[in-house]
C-alpha cells in the first residue's frame, strides 16, 4: 500500500489530504485541517450584538450566511419574531451570497483544476451580484445589516425597483452559464475528457435549514460534534455521516432528479445541482421581492436579556448551525458547526464521511477534482 500526502490549495483555505492507494486506486482517505482561529473563544464575554460584526469575518465568501445564522440564533434565544419585510430582505441577500459563491467556485476553484477558463466572466458576474447585496446591506463582503430584531436598512421603492430589475438582468445573464433547461456549454466542456459517474458517495442527504425554498428533512438537535485526528471536529447526525449542500437540498427538483437518477451522487450530479440551484434561487427571489410591504417596520427591539438559542440555515455549502448562550446581554458560550464539517469529516474505513466515500475506488489523478466538488471551505472549518 502506498500513501501520498498532499496539501489541497486553491480552495477557501487549505486542507491536507492523505491518500492510501493499492494498484493506483484509492483505498482510503484521511482529511486533515491544521488551522485554528479560535472564533468561539473570541466571542465569549462580549455583548451579543458584537457577534453580528465578528461572525461575518469567519469567512470572506460566505460570511453573510454566518451573519444571518448569528441573528437567528440570538432571536431564538431572546424570543424575537422579525417582520416579513426583514425576513424577505434577508432571504434576498443570503440567496445572492449563495449565487456569487457558486459562480466563483465553478470558475475559480473547480474549473482551473481541470482546464483553463476565462474566469473573469465569473468575477464580473459575482461583482454585479455583490452590488445588489450592497444596495440592501451596505456592502459586500462583511456587512452587519441583519441584526437581532430585523434589519438596519430602511429602503425606498427606488432601491426595491433597482433590486428587482438587477435580479431579472442577472437571471437572464446566467442563462449563458446554465439555462433553466439545464444546458451549460462550460459544464459539458469540463467533462469532455472526464467520466461523469466518478466520485459517488454515501447517497445519504441532510437538509437542516428552512430558508429560501429549502425544506428541512431533519432536526439540528440530533447533530453532534466529535473529535477527529486533526483540529477540525467531525459532525454526525443521529450517529451517521450525511452529505449536505446543493445536491442534498435540490433532489425534489425534476431536472436535478433526472440527472441524479442517471449518474447517482457522482461529481457530475454534484456540480450540476450546484449550478442549477442558481436558477432556482433567482426564480424564488424574483417571486418574494414582490411580497414585500415597504411600510412594515424594519426592526423590533429585543427585550429579553438571557436565553439559549440556535440558528440554522442553508448556506452556500449546506447546513450551517450557530448556537448561543446569552447571560445578561453577554455571550456565555458560542458554538459554530459549518457545512464543510459535515461533508469532510474524518471517518473510519467502516464509517466513512461523504468526501472520504467519494474518493474510494477512484484514481489519484481525479482526487483533486472529486474533493473540490464538495466546495470546501477550510476557512470556515478552522473557525
Amino acid at each position: 500500500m502506498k500513501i501520498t500526502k498532499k496539501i489541497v490549495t486553491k480552495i477557501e483555505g487549505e486542507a491536507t489530504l492523505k491518500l492510501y492507494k493499492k494498484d493506483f486506486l484509492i483505498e482510503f482517505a484521511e482529511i486533515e485541517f491544521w488551522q485554528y482561529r479560535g472564533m468561539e473563544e473570541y466571542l465569549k464575554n462580549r455583548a451579543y450584538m458584537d457577534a453580528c460584526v465578528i461572525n461575518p469575518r469567519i469567512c470572506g465568501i460566505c460570511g453573510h450566511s454566518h451573519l444571518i445564522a448569528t441573528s437567528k440564533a440570538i432571536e431564538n434565544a431572546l424570543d424575537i419574531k422579525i417582520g416579513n419585510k426583514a425576513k424577505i430582505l434577508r432571504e434576498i441577500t443570503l440567496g445572492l451570497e449563495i449565487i456569487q459563491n457558486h459562480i466563483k467556485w465553478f470558475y475559480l476553484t473547480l474549473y482551473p483544476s481541470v482546464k483553463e477558463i476565462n474566469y473573469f466572466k465569473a468575477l464580473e458576474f459575482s461583482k454585479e451580484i455583490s452590488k445588489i447585496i450592497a444596495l440592501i446591506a451596505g456592502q459586500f463582503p462583511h456587512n452587519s445589516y441583519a441584526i437581532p430584531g430585523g434589519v438596519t436598512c430602511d429602503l425606498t421603492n427606488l432601491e426595491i425597483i433597482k433590486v428587482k430589475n438587477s435580479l431579472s438582468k442577472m437571471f437572464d445573464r446566467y442563462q449563458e452559464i446554465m439555462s433553466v433547461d439545464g444546458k451549460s456549454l462550460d459544464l459539458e466542456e469540463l467533462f469532455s475528457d472526464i467520466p461523469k459517474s466518478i466520485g459517488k458517495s454515501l447517497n445519504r442527504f441532510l437538509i437542516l435549514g428552512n430558508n429560501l425554498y429549502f425544506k428541512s428533512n431533519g432536526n439540528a438537535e440530533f447533530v453532534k460534534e466529535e473529535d477527529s485526528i486533526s483540529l477540525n471536529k467531525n459532525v454526525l447526525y443521529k450517529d451517521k455521516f450525511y452529505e449536505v449542500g446543493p445536491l442534498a437540498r435540490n433532489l425534489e427538483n425534476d431536472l436535478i432528479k433526472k440527472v441524479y437518477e442517471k449518474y447517482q451522487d457522482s461529481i457530475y450530479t454534484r456540480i450540476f445541482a450546484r449550478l442549477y440551484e442558481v436558477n432556482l434561487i433567482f426564480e424564488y427571489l424574483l417571486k418574494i421581492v414582490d411580497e414585500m410591504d415597504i411600510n412594515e417596520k424594519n426592526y423590533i427591539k429585543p427585550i429579553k436579556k438571557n436565553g439559549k438559542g440556535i440558528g440554522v440555515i442553508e448556506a452556500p455549502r449546506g447546513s450551517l448551525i450557530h448556537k448561543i448562550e446569552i447571560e445578561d446581554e453577554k455571550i456565555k458560550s458560542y458554538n459554530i458547526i459549518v457545512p464543510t464539517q459535515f461533508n469532510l469529516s474524518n471517518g473510519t474505513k467502516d464509517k466513512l464521511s461523504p468526501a472520504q466515500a467519494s474518493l474510494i475506488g477512484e484514481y489519484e489523478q481525479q482526487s483533486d477534482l472529486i474533493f473540490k466538488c464538495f466546495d470546501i471551505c477550510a476557512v470556515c472549518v478552522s473557525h
Partner: protein
Amino acid sequence: MHSKPKVFWIDAVGCNGCSHSFFNYGEIKELLDKIELLYHPLLPSKEFKVQRSDILIIEGALKTTYFPRLDFNLVDLIFELIKLSKKVIVVGTCSVYGGIFGEGVLFNKKKEGKFFEFKEKMIALPGCPPHPEWIAYVIEMLIENKNILMDKENRPKEIYSYTSHMGCIRNEYFEWKIDVLEFGTKEGCLFYDQGCQGPFTHSSCNRILWNEINSKPRAGTPCFGCTEKEFPKKNLFKTETFMGIPANIPLGVGKRAYLTIAGIAKSLKNERLSKRLINEDN
C-alpha cells in the same frame, strides 16, 4: 519593453475577505494584465514556490503559535517572502494591526509588529475588508513607479486622510445632533447612541462607496472603525460615553469646542429633521 512586475499574494490567518473584496474591482482583468501573478490563494497562478517578487501582498494576521501554511510555519514563510520582495502591501486590518485573528505583520495593535523592521518597504492598507479600489490603487501606483504619499503609519494619504464620516448621508442629522431612535430608519445619526465610529475612523469608503453603490451607515449600520488598530473594539453597537457625552469625538476638535457646538446645535431645533422624512400625513 520592460517585463511585467512580479506579484506574490499570500494569505496568512484570516478569512480571505480581502481577496473577495478585491475580486469586486471592476477593472480587475485590466489590472492583472499588467502584472505577472506568481501566486494567489484563489486565482489561477503558477505552482507555489518561495521566490523573489516585486510586490508582495500579505492578507491576514500572524499567530505566535505554530500555524501551518503550504507546509511551512506561517511566520517563517512570511519572513522569507518579505526578504525576497522589493515592496510589500500589507492588506487588511489583520495584516496591518492584527484584527480579530492575531498579531499584525507591521503592527501589533498599537505596538510595533513582528516585521516592523521592514516598514520602509511596506504600504499599509487597513480595512476589514479594505476597499477594492484601495488595493488596485496601490498596485497601480507601484507599477507606474509613482510616489505614494503616506502618513506615519505608512497608510496612503489619498485614502486615509478622509474619515468614513465624510460622505455620510446622515450628516445633516449629525449637524443638528439628532439621534437615531431605533435601527431600521432613514432618519437620525448613529454617532450618539448606536456606536458609529465614522467621525474618527480613517477611511474614504463613504466617499467612494462600497460596491459602487452604498455604505454601512447609509444602510443604517454604524461604522465599526474597521480600518483602525483596535478593531474590533467591544460593544460595537453602543456609543461609549463619558458623563453622558461620546467618549470619542470627531478628529481634529477639542472636547470643549465639540461640546459647545453640540450644545448649541441641540438647542436650536431643526423642525424638518425632527420628523419622519417621508410622512404619509403630509
